[in-house]
């Protein structure tokens, strides 16, 4: 892959090399001028590059995506959205075991146990996501309908039931309506997450890339004008020469200083 830094770096290196070769040539020429009685009275020619303006034409051959950790993106998104998801679960109405006529939201049934319930369900669902991340990501992105109406619904129902049992909460989760309400919530969650996860992945891919450039004549000669990129560089060449300085101890130090 050819990158912008490679091209500019090579050009700057080339300028330095050109200057060195020019100086070597001048050095050799000065010796010849010295030895030739006819040339001795002529000034020795010396080319010096002080500034260069360079225009380059190139084309972007390809945008090369850098690795984007899609699994981590999906995991983070799922875990971030869990709290809001659980609020929809807590809003589902269910009857009490002790009084089937008392139908109210899960959160009202739980009362002071709500925080413990949320913690247990969050832990269960987080563990499931983390331990099955490959499968979760694949199904969520490719088939959110299946993920929401089955996989995530089942995991949610199991986690809720386990928490209710562990807390000995007075709620009856055996009704058909509860299963349907969980499925509605998990389906909506999956649909929303699929859109958000895909957007996050697309944005990450859009932000992390390299440009592979076409610079060789045979690569760009047939390309139309409207696809050609251009880079213009203005370069100044500083010349340096050795100078000797004495430090406080009287030691001579040779330094490169700008001419």
């Amino acid at each position, binding site marked *: 892959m050819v990158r912008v830094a490679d091209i*500019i770096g090579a050009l700057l290196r080339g300028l330095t090399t050109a200057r060195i070769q020019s100086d070597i040539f001048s050095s050799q020429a000065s010796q010849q001028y010295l030895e030739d009685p006819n040339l001795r009275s002529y000034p020795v020619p010396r080319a010096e590059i002080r500034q260069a303006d360079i225009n380059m034409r190139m*084309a972007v051959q*390809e*945008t090369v995506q850098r690795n984007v950790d899609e699994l981590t993106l999906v995991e983070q998104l799922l875990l971030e959205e869990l709290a809001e998801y659980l609020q929809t679960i807590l809003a589902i109405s269910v009857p009490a075991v002790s009084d089937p006529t008392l139908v109210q939201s899960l959160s009202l049934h739980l009362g002071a146990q709500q925080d413990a319930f949320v913690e247990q369900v969050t832990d269960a669902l987080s563990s499931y996501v983390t331990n099955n991340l490959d499968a979760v990501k694949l199904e969520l992105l490719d088939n959110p309908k299946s993920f929401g109406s089955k996989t995530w619904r089942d995991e949610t129902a199991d986690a809720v039931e386990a928490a209710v049992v562990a807390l000995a909460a007075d709620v009856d989760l055996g009704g058909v309506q509860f299963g349907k309400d969980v499925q509605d919530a998990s389906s909506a969650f999956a649909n929303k997450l699929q859109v958000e996860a895909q957007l996050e992945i697309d944005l990450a891919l859009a932000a992390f890339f390299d440009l592979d450039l076409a610079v060789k004549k045979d690569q760009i000669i047939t390309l139309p004008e409207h696809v050609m990129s251009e*880079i213009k560089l203005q370069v100044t060449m500083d010349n340096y020469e050795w100078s000797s300085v004495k430090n406080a101890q009287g030691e001579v130090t040779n330094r490169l200083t700008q001419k």
Partner: protein
Amino acid sequence: MSHFVILGRVGAHLIDELDKVLARAKSPGGGVGVGVWLRTVEVAIPFASSDGSDVSPTTIVVGETPLPLAVARELLLPLQQAVLVSAADVDAASPSSRGVLVMRVTLPRPDSPDSPNEPFNPTT
């Protein structure tokens, strides 16, 4: 068709590449010539909107006159359009969905030889 990229990130990527050039110039044996000062860089890079929508204005200029890299980075942040930049994609796009990002930046002069930490100032 390639994956789309964010227009501002295209400019930021070019600045990242210039930062690499500066870093190489500072490192001994970095391969960038001693005493070479890359003063200004102007880049013109064609793009096409990723969804085929019309691009207006067709030329987006970051730096009418060359700007320091940090300033150019700031100005690139609002350019959040999704675009395609590969030659094949730009060529395949309709003329009205094509644009050009022009960016002009100045680069700092390499450390002076008098600087105590001057990397290309060997002493003997």
